[in-house]
Structures are given as C-alpha cells and as structure tokens.
C-alpha cells in the first residue's frame, strides 16, 4: 500500500455547525464570561494540574518517547496520504468479519443511518459508550427527536447529561464540575429516569460512583442496542478498539445484541503493529496512566459471543475538507487524548465551552476552523485564541505542530476577511515602516521625542483594546535615544571602547 502515489485530494464539503453551537459568540467574549465563573476556574485549575503532573511522570519513564511520538505521527501520515485505500481495506475486512459498513458524508446522514438502524431493532432506548464522534454529530438529540432515549454510561458524560450541560473537555467532559455539584445533579436527576440516588448520598467520590453504578446497571441489563465510537480502527484486521477506564464501555460492547459504532475516517490505523505504538502513547498522554484499565477490541461478529448485529458508520463530516490542505491536515493525526487541553494556559482558565464546539482547547482551535470553515464568529476567532506558547505542541503525542497550524489558519482568516480593516491598515503601516531602515530611523525620532515629553508619566485612559491593555499594565518609558542613535554616536566617537 505504501507504494501507491500520494495524490492531493480535492476538498470535501465543510461540516455544518451543529445546532447547539449555532450563533456562538467570538472566543474573547465567551472567554470573558467563563473567566468570571470562579467555581469553574477553581475546578479546572485543580483538575488540569493533577492530570498534567500525572502525564509528566509517566511520559518521563519512557526513554524513547520522542521516537514513539514520531512513530505515531508517521502511522497517521501514512493513513492521511492514502486515505481512500485504507478505508477500502478497512471496509473489506470489517465486512469479512461479519460487520455491516455504512458511509456518512455528514452529521445528518450519519444520524439518519443510526436512527434507522435502532428503529429497525424495535428498541426505544440505547446505551452509549463515551464517543466524541457522536457528540460531534449530536446523535443523542437526533435519537431523542425520534423518541429513542440515549443513555450515556461514562460517569462524566452521565454528569453532563443529567446536568443538561455540555461537555467542556474531551477526556473528562465534566471537568468544570466539582463533587458537591455532582451530588446535587445526581440527587435531582437520577430518579427522573431510573433508579434514584440514595437519600444519604454524600459527595465522596466512592459514594458518587456507587450511585452511578447502581443506576446504570439497570440500563446495561435492559439494553438491546449499544452505540459506541472507536479510538482506533485497524485497516489490516478490520478491528475496532475502544480504550476506557470505567468498564462501562466493556458492558456496552458485549451485552447488547446490536452494536453500532460511529467512527471518524481519521481513526484508521494502517496496521495491527501500529496499535502497539498508539497503546503506549494514548493512556500516558490522556489520563496519565501507563495503561488504561479496559481495552476492548472487536473484529466483526462471533456466534454466541457478544453483539450479533455489528454496524460501523464511517463519517466524513468535514474531514476530507481538512485533508485537502497539505499543511492543515496534520490536525487529523489527533487521537483525542486531551494532553493539549490539560497543558494549555488559556484552556485552563476559560474551560471548554468558550470554544463553541465539542472539540475545545488548542486542538479545537485548529480543528473547528478547518472542519467548519471560518465563516462563523467563533470559528474566525479560534485561531487567535492562543498565545502561541507552544506547550500544546510539546505535549502532543502525535507531534501536531499546533502553533504552526494556528499561524497558518490566521493567515487564512485574514486573507478571507481582506485587509481593509483597522488592523489591516495598521499592519500595512507597520510593514511600510519596517520596509526600509532609514524610514524606520526617521520614525524612531518621533518615538524618542515622545519619550522626552512623556517621561515616566502614563498615557491618559484610552478607549478600545489599547485602553483595556493599559487598564492593568503600566507601559514602559520610551527612551530618549534609540539603539540605532546610540550606535551612530559611538561610531562617530570612534567605535568600541
């Protein structure tokens, strides 16, 4: 397969913004609201700090971490360079194993396929394994619209679902909640849809988990249909892989008769061997564990063992649009580990909701404007929602150069918007000033004059962005002489002392 020539794909359709996120404000506005939520700030700083420290510890144990990262990136690049061929290989091997493969161009198609499959079984409820793909297409909402209850079984997803909330993190979607908030949510909501939380429920993690376990057990035992995503889909063997911590995934993947897995086309791994690389990279980067507690691998249907009706829905939903950009496609290497979120100083303060997508944080800032384009306010602002500090790139197990992609997307936003803006004119003026050193030297005379006049006084209160900048910071005093002038003086006086 590697011998096949690399062809540049044509851009596929963009992803439509899912209903929940239509009309999201620009990141800076949403961020302001989030920054004001003191409880959330505290919860986030604590949780990201704990995961960061755990990750750092287990990554440091591996001498050849950089080689592992490179191997992971290479495997994904091999896929991205030959996407069509590997997808066909995956389909062939899945089908050979007894699964039925469905192809969905977008969220609407994917939801239609899943709803029809569930309806075909006669079920009115499904149990779900935590899945970003189904969050992305808002499958739960689509099922509910057809009278089918979708029960999230991952503890954090359950908290989000009961809280009528949105996930704010890829791995730990309820990261913005603390124990006492969770207790309140359980007490209020559990009884409405099944076994209620015990009256004496405390906010001890053990008690909360026990309440969720008892509540979910009824649903696991009753369910005839499960819906999952997949962390990996191995083309060579037609195997799907789910990596999880709680065992809820194992329940969903083995108990019900029908299993429907919704999988983004970038989840494919070319070979079985590749899985070894990714199983070392993912848990360490994600939960900061050497190994995750539950890894389930299934390859088609096996008589008398596990689901007898296995369906795999492969979704594009904007991914081939990303693939067509030779620079931007690097974002499709992402394995949704969340290391970039946990290390990002911006995410740590704003949380995930401000990013206007199920993909928040640095990866969201490069993925959403590529999947959905940059027409909406939020998508236009996301490439700028970063200081380019580079902590995300350093943490990314797939070596996605997030800062480079952010800069690449910033240029795309500016090129699309045009340069006839206040910023565009300021940039043009700056480029003109820096275009010639003699011109710059003349302009610097104005700056040194300003320095002489202002002395150590601060500017008066100014409106707008600059005013806000100055509202918390003193500005440096402008010098009476630039370096260029100092150097010229020294040269006149005979150079180096």
């Amino acid at each position, binding site marked *: 397969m590697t011998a096949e020539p690399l062809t540049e794909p044509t851009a596929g359709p963009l992803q439509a913004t899912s209903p929940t996120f239509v009309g999201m404000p620009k990141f800076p506005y949403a961020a302001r609201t989030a*920054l004001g939520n003191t409880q959330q700030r505290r919860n986030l700083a604590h949780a990201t700090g704990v995961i960061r420290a755990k990750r750092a510890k287990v990554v440091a144990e591996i001498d050849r971490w950089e080689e592992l990262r490179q191997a992971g990136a290479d495997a994904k690049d091999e896929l991205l360079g030959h996407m069509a061929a590997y997808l066909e290989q995956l389909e062939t091997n899945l089908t050979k194993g007894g699964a039925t493969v469905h192809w969905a161009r977008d969220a609407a198609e994917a939801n239609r396929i899943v709803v029809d499959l569930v309806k075909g079984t006669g079920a009115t409820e499904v149990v779900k394994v935590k899945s970003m793909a189904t969050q992305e297409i808002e499958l739960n909402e689509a099922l509910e619209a057809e009278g089918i209850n979708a029960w999230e079984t991952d503890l954090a997803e359950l908290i989000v679902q009961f809280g009528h909330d949105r996930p704010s993190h890829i791995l730990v979607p309820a990261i913005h909640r603390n124990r006492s908030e969770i207790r309140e949510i359980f007490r209020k909501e559990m009884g409405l849809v099944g076994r209620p939380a015990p009256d004496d429920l405390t906010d001890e993690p053990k008690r909360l988990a026990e309440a969720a376990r008892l509540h979910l057990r009824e649903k696991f035992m009753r369910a005839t249909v499960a819906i999952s995503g997949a962390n990996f889909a191995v083309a060579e063997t037609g195997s799907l892989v789910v990596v999880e911590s709680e065992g809820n995934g194992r329940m969903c993947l083995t108990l019900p008769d029908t299993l429907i897995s919704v999988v983004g086309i970038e989840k494919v791994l070319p070979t079985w061997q590749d899985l070894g690389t990714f199983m070392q990279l993912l848990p360490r980067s994600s939960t900061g564990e050497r190994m995750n507690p539950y890894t389930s691998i299934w390859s088609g249907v096996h008589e008398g063992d596990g689901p007898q009706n296995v369906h795999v829905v492969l979704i594009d939903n904007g991914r081939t649009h990303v693939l067509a950009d030779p620079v931007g496609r690097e974002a499709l290497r992402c394995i949704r580990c969340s290391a970039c979120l946990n290390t990002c100083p911006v995410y740590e303060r704003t949380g995930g909701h401000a990013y206007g997508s199920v993909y928040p944080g640095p990866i969201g800032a490069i993925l959403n404007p590529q999947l959905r384009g940059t027409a909406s306010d939020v998508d236009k602002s996301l490439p700028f929602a970063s*200081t380019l500090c580079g902590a995300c790139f350093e943490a990314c197990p797939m070596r996605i150069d997030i800062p480079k992609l952010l*800069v690449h997307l910033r*240029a795309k936003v500016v090129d699309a918007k045009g340069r006839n803006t206040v910023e565009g004119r300021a940039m043009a003026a700056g*480029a003109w000033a820096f*275009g010639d*050193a003699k011109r*710059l030297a003349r302009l610097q005379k104005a700056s040194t004059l300003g320095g002489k006049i202002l002395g150590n006084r601060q500017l008066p209160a100014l409106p707008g962005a*600059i005013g806000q900048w100055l509202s918390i*910071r003193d500005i440096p005093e402008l010098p009476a002489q630039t370096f260029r002038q100092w150097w010229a003086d020294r040269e006149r006086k005979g150079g180096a002392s």
Partner: protein
Amino acid sequence: MSPATSTRPKVALFATCYNDTVWPGTPIATVKVLERLGCEVVFPEAQTCCGQIFTNTGYADEAIPLVRGFVDTFGGYDYVVAPSGSCVGAIREQHHDLAERAGDAALVRRVDTVVPKVYDISEFIIDVLGVTDVGAYFPHRVTFHPTCHSIRVAHVGDRPQRLLQSVRGLTFVELPQATECCGFGGTFSVKNPDVSISMASDKARHVRETGAEVLVAGDNMCLMNIGGVLRRQRAGVRIMHLAEILASTEEDPA
C-alpha cells in the same frame, strides 16, 4: 569576513526592532558583553524587523519583504546574534515557510543558509564562545522567567539560567510554574485581553512569591507584559533583560 582571518569572532548584532526602539539598553548591554568576551561587534544598519508580528497576526504576505531584508542584511556574516529568543525562534521556524509561501526558490536557499548562523545571545555565549562565566557581577536576588519562544521555539534550554548562576554575587531563586506563558502572545494580549490579563496576573503573583528584587528574562516583550503588571502594582520588582545582567560588572554596575 571569515573567522580564519581574525581570532576575534565577528558578530553581526540583530538588535530587533522593539529593542532598538523601546529598550536600547538591551542591545547596548549585548554589545558590551560580547566585546568584553573578545568579539568584534557590528551593527548592520539596514536591519529592521524579523516580521514575526505580521506572521503571527495572519499577515504572512507583509512579512515576506522583511524575510528578504533579513537575508540581504545578514547574509554575509558568520554569526548573527540577537537578544531575543522570540525573534530568533521566528527566524528559525517561520522564515523558511514564508520564503516558500513567496514561491521564491532562491530566497528559500538564502534563508536556509542564513538561519543556522542566527543565535540567541545565551546560545552564542555558551555554544560558540564556550563561556558560562562571563565575568559579570550583580549582587541581587534574581528570578528568571524562561519565555515560551525561548524554550519551545528557539530551544535555548537552560543556557540563560546557567549564565545567571555563574554571575558573581547573584542569588538565583526558582520561579514557581516558570514555564507557563505570561499571557502576552503579541496581538493575543489585545485580541483576548481578559484571558491575557488573567495569565499576566498569575505570573506577576508567582514573581512576587519568590521575593526576588529583579525579574529577568530573555525577551523584553514578555517583560513588558509581566513588568507592566508589577509596575502598576508598585510591586517593587525591577525588570531586566538577561543581557543587562551579563553586562553588569563591579566597575560598571547595572
């Protein structure tokens, strides 16, 4: 031009646009310390800006003439030294891509020739001159913010700390959560003012926790951000660039 003709390394100083205009003390200190260490320093007057502000704001096309200007100005030197991990990082990480964006193969080649000769001052002193103790004297309690672009783009590592720890009289105090960004990020601090302020406040708090008299970094823009908050707080913490500490001596204290 070749170092073979002279035992004194000839160094072209890239002062950087903002140091030249706003913080001339930093390139002046760079000249002093390099000359003290036996270098011949020249200042090619055609220099202006590395273009990073344009590139990082999305104005890549505006940065391309500055890439041309940079290779025109510095193409003939063996060593180009700048007192800024950020500008050095931008030259290393962005100039090649910008030249490719321009579709100019000759420019790409010239960039690729110049880039390996560009050093942050801490790299040049330790790697090229082979010196860690630069003979400086600075009897103060100092903490150090390793700026993001210095460590994650230019990859200067712990060179600045090694230089500082060799300064006579200097007491070095570790900065808590040192590698976390100060929230400046160029136009980020204007476009996302609330997040920026939240980050800058935390950084300033950590600086105050150290009890240091002086906050040092290898990039003045980050120092403007953190220092702007500290000054507004009247925190009594002095802000200095690494080069200014290294230039300080008993005879000529900073």
